């Protein structure tokens, strides 16, 4: 992956909240990370591990206490105008984004972001409809009030509000929290669709190991304000003990397989999605029947 230039890069980032008061607290320290276009990365970590602080630096909502954030090689804090344009190119979807809806209709709410970027007229309408398409919001819903639709739909409208800015980097903080299984799968599918259509870099913060194992090609594990692991899901999930120590877990199917192996069955160690597990089990069944 080394030859291409990273789209966004974090260099030796440290952030301290409320410096000089009794509530002083360093949330992240000395973080170095780089993300490339077309990458789908998951960030996992225990509550308070600094995930949210980290992602808010990527679009300049928080200013690093020390260190740098580079977008296509340029420091995002170099001037005020630049930081404003960065917000459109690095889209950030907060946790429970449906609580930020405010307009009279879903269309207007989705249009808020691109409008702030200075887009208007037909282009604006096209952007809104395209974003709505990505998240599966139908035409008639666009004319409804965002306060009259279901929770899952609200969430999708809110995500569309960020996608409509067509960012090169899309960051989502627990996009599936509090949704049922169907809503969860739909949103993950939407995210993947956007990532593939735009060749965007997607960074997703999550608590669900199953979710990131399923979706992400790269996992970043945060612990106590620093990056403790960074690799493919297969690499990360082999460190089950360390993950448990950090208050995290491995996907359920991985621990089931680990127990089975402990019982003496000859099974692979790199199982972390149900789909893969089923495939390997079927393979073995075939072997045996021969």
């Amino acid at each position, binding site marked *: 992956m080394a030859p291409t230039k990273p789209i966004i890069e974090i260099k030796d980032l440290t952030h301290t909240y409320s410096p000089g008061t009794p509530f002083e607290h360093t949330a992240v320290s000395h973080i170095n990370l780089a993300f490339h276009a077309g990458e789908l990365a998951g960030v996992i970590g225990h509550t308070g591990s600094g995930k949210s602080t980290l992602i808010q630096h990527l679009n300049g909502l928080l200013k690093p206490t020390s260190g740098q954030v580079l977008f296509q090689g340029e420091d995002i804090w170099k001037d005020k105008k630049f930081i404003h344009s960065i917000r459109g190119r690095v889209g950030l979807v*907060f946790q429970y984004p449906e609580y930020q*809806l*405010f307009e009279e209709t879903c269309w207007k709410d989705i249009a808020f972001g691109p409008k702030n970027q200075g887009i208007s007229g037909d282009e604006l309408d096209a952007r809104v409809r395209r974003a709505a398409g990505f998240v599966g919001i139908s035409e008639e819903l666009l004319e409804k009030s965002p306060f009259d639709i279901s929770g899952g739909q609200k969430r999708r409208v809110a995500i569309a509000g*960020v996608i409509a800015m067509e960012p090169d980097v899309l960051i989502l903080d627990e996009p599936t929290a509090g949704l049922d299984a169907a809503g969860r799968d739909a949103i993950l599918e939407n995210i993947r669709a956007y990532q593939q259509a735009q060749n965007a870099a997607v960074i997703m913060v999550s608590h669900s190991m199953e979710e990131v194992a399923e979706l992400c090609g790269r996992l970043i594990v945060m612990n106590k304000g620093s990056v403790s692991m960074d690799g493919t899901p297969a690499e990360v999930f082999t460190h089950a003990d360390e993950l448990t120590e950090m208050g995290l877990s491995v996907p359920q199917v991985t621990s089931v397989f680990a127990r089975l192996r402990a019982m003496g069955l000859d099974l692979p160690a790199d199982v972390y999605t149900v789909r893969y597990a089923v495939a390997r089990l079927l393979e073995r069944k075939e072997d045996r029947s021969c």
Partner: protein
Amino acid sequence: MLKDITLGQFFPGKTIIHRLDPRTKLLMLIVYIVTLFLAKSWCSYGLVLAFLVAVTVLGKIPFKAMTKGLKPMLVFIIFTAVLNLFYTKSGTLLLDWWIFEIWSDGIITAFFMVMRIMMLVCGTFLLTYTTSPIALTDAMERLLNPLKKLHVPVHELAMMMSIALRFIPTLIEETDKIISAQKARGADFETGSLIRRAKALIPILVPLFVSAFRRADELATAMECRCYHGGEGRTRLKVLRYAAIDLAAFVVGGLLLSGVIVLRRFGL
């Protein structure tokens, strides 16, 4: 940025001042204010100031926090100083230029007035710095208890106050989050004309009100589910009890007040 609100900020601690009964502290604040307004001379001001400094040191409150609290009062303090400086016309004339006259008593009065306001503000800050807002409402409820006889809904008022206080940090946090989220969508709150800036507040206020109403509704339901029905016959989690240090505090307060009264008698 909203976290910088110092009004009523509480510095948690375990010092002797923190451990005082909140009712004691509230009553002591009243004694302190009365004393401050009775003080007339360098001696009595010195006495009250010594008391203020002693409490600050005992409560381990950084002096920086005190001066920070004074900042918003600066305009008011300067205004008072200027008024007193030019409108006191006794003592010896020091300066006479155009329509401005400065008399020696003017300087002294202005100085005393400024001292009085600053000490007043610092004293009240000491109370909120060393007492949690919940303890304070508790103390107020207890002190106002006699008013129940006059059918003043003391408990309900105190409950409303505790709930309001309880939700200030929550709502501030919520506002911060909403501001961040709208900023992430490119909203701009810092530039443009006044009308544009006021309009830019809509994306913050609408979600904030929606969530405040939602929270209020949820809280009311949760309270009803736990059979809350007001003050009648309710016992408390933390029962306030006066202890030996409270008695000591009252003695110190009494000494301060009588000291200043005595000094006044001697015209000091």
